[in-house]
């Protein structure tokens, strides 16, 4: 990162970040308590199960392949959005963000209803790739808009071809954004349950759900969840390592941003296909299938518009609350990671990311455990659920805040400090103001994800409070797919609003890189 301070971080910032980390680490603490109570022998016995190596292999294979394919689709898409001469660019940008509004379980259901033979690895890979592509496309497009093509030009004048010039000139600038997006996709795939379960692909999350499900064996579930955390930890550290090297390369880039728009010519048709197909497959197919089912269903169970309205209101409020909590927790961590280096900073950031690799049911149960022990008066209230969303999705906000803060020149902060402003006042007047679009984008990303969340919502919501996701669940669970359709369509419509703002905010915030990361 270009704007890095060599000094030790201020104590207040460090304390705030560590407190945020401690709160975010509640699920990890819960796992430790559970695994500890299971005892060493039980832990070893888990590895005697012939199924466990299969589960780990499947999990790794799926996470790696979904990550690779989202990068393969997302980076060229981002290039088209940011650097090509495109008609109706705003429309394409919105389309690129729209799959964010579709929960993986909904996309999987839609495809399954259309093509019942879909199952196993390929089906899970296909649907997860479709819904996760925006996690790469959006931050990379932002980084491309912020970058310069000047270096490519230098390479061209030295006799390199256009691809080689891109690799030498532009790639180092967007590499951190690609890595950040890939990290999100990888963690998302590790923790996803709905998409894989519907296609009967057996991975760690399905086994965890199953262990909580039929066996009432919370220890086995906790041991599997810890394995998942170890996988997530490996991925986070690998990304930090790769980013560290990328940052050094990127640090050499200076000068005014300069951008050339590429004429597509004969490449227009393939470009349009690349931009249109993933979104159409992720959004249009499931929605169409559900609406068709709505009209085919013989017993459309009693539909109460008031219930739909109440669930929509709850969904919006709870996800907004979750976004606020996530931003509050992620701010100190993101600012620390953007400005300072060192072992402590790295540990704080790593811990902050880990919740993203945990399945919702583990986070849900850990907060049941924690809130009953620490704040019993708040148990089963909207506060605890919003807090759970905050903990679950804070990592999505960290990257965006880190990226947005890193782009604010430290020299501006220094000017403010020499004018006599305190640290906090400087942060509010200078840093926050300039990083605002990135922070807003991070909040929107958390909100859109929280709207779709199901397992933690089921465990933690106030009794009698329904969200769109829980209403959808209660209908698809008895195969009343017709009756589920209005809720599914409403959920996608409501989640499309922040997704739309996100793509829009990003277009306006072109100077920021990796704001969604």
């Amino acid at each position, binding site marked *: 990162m270009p704007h890095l301070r060599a000094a030790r971080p201020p104590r207040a910032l460090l304390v705030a970040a560590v407190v945020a980390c401690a709160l975010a680490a509640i699920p990890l603490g819960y796992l430790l308590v559970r695994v500890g109570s299971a005892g060493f022998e039980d832990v070893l016995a888990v590895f005697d*199960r012939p199924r466990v190596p299969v589960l780990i292999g499947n999990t790794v294979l799926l996470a790696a392949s979904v990550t690779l394919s989202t990068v393969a689709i997302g980076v060229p898409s981002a290039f088209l959005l940011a650097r090509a001469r495109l008609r109706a660019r705003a429309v394409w940008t919105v389309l690129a963000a729209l799959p964010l509004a579709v929960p993986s379980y909904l996309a999987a259901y839609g495809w399954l209803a259309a093509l019942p033979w879909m199952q196993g690895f390929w089906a899970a890979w296909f649907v997860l790739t479709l819904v996760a592509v925006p996690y790469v496309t959006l931050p990379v497009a932002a980084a491309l808009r912020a970058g310069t093509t000047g270096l490519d030009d230098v390479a061209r004048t030295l006799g390199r071809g256009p691809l080689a010039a891109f690799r030498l000139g532009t790639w180092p600038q967007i590499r951190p954004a690609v890595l950040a997006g890939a990290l999100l996709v990888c963690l998302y795939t590790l923790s996803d349950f709905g998409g894989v379960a519907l296609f009967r692909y057996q991975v760690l999350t399905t086994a965890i759900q199953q262990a909580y499900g039929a066996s009432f064996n919370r220890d086995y579930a906790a041991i599997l969840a810890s394995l998942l955390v170890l996988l997530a930890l490996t991925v986070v550290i690998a990304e930090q390592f790769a980013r560290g090297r990328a940052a050094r390369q990127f640090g050499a880039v200076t000068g005014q941003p300069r951008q050339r728009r590429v004429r597509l010519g004969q490449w227009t048709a393939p470009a349009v296909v690349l931009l249109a197909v993933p979104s159409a497959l992720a959004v249009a197919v499931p929605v169409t299938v559900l609406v068709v089912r709505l009209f085919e269903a013989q*017993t459309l169970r009693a539909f109460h518009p008031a219930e739909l309205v109440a669930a929509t209101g709850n969904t919006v409020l709870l996800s907004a609350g979750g976004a606020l909590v996530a931003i509050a927790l992620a701010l100190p961590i993101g600012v620390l990671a953007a400005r300072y280096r060192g072992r402590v900073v790295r540990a704080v950031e790593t811990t902050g990311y880990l919740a993203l690799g945990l399945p919702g049911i583990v986070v849900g149960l850990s907060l049941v455990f924690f809130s009953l022990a620490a704040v*019993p008066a708040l148990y089963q*209230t909207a506060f605890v659920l919003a807090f759970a969303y905050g903990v679950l999705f804070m990592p999505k906000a960290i990257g965006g805040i880190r990226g947005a803060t890193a782009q604010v020149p430290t020299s501006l902060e220094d000017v403010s400090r020499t004018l006599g402003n305190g640290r906090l006042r400087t942060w509010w007047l200078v840093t926050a*103001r300039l990083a605002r679009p990135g922070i807003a984008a991070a909040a929107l990303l958390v909100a859109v994800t929280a709207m779709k969340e199901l397992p933690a919502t089921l465990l933690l919501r106030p*009794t009698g409070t329904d969200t769109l996701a829980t209403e959808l669940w209660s209908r698809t669970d008895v195969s009343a797919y017709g009756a589920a359709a209005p809720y599914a369509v409403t959920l996608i419509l409501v989640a499309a609003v922040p997704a739309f703002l996100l793509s829009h*905010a990003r277009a306006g915030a072109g100077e920021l890189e990796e704001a969604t990361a």
Partner: protein
Amino acid sequence: MRSFRPVLALGAGVAVALTLAACTASPESGSPSTEGEDTLTIYAGRNEALVGPLLEQFTEDTGIEIDVRYATSPELNALLLEEGERTPAEVFLSQDAGALGSIANAGLTSPIPAELADLIPAGFTSDDDSWIGVTGRARVIAYDGEHLTPETVPDTVDALAAPEWKGRVAFAPGNASFQSFITALRVLEGEEAAAEWVDAIAANDPILTDNNLATLDLVNEGQADIGLINHYYWFERAAEEGEENMRAQLEFLPGDPGGIVNVSGAAILKGAEGDPDALAFVEYLVSEKAQRYFVEDTFEYPLLPGIAAPEGLPSLDSLVNPELDLADLESLEQTQQVLADAGLL
């Protein structure tokens, strides 16, 4: 976007916080701290679309207000174990006996009064009155009606380990009812025979699913020839899609471990010991009215003697295995070990 000003964001934040607070403070949100009022809190591990109307009828008939928390039985089971005695729930209505046994073993239930518990015949309810059976559900074979005829469908699960069924049988190894069936196999045919069957079926390239409904769907779509499920899932699906459109058909297995009858049931939780509302609710579940509701709306077997079973189903007596006591189904851990050893869990 210029509209994302911090002040605006802060204002929105305060508004959200205030509304969340309002949500929480309102009496119908049912937080555990709202004590002293008349609302009965029920954890329902059954689907809202199926039992919701019955619970509303209960309030209408008795005037007792209820707060219902719907989720799957296993999720609520995990939640209750986590909450322990601090649970706000007063009654747990469970889809299967396993979850009830699990919270009873954890010491979280209070006894059902004998005169109530005795209404349900032994074998369909707990032997120590820690919970009460409400409805019966039979294990069945669902088969692809386009590939198979009733004559070619096995009437015992033992046959499914044969090579001719390789790759054609679907089931959910993690599902509680499936595990109950394996336990029955262990109890009825011995540990060794059960382990042999599990190994054979695991080696026969089975199609593993997450739940009964997914299993039924595979059969209904022609993806699997045989599925091991509970009988009422077929009726739920038929209600959605129309009976005449069902490709899957049912084969009941009288006398076979694969065709045992399991129950749904209810428990009064420890904190609600002696609570008249909780008792009234459990009483209601085994009343004639509620039992008829289960027969007509969810196609389950009534457990209260004297109520007729759903039309078109074999009688409950013909399915019951006299050598099996439901209490014997509690040895779940050994069953899971057998399944884990065979690579199914």
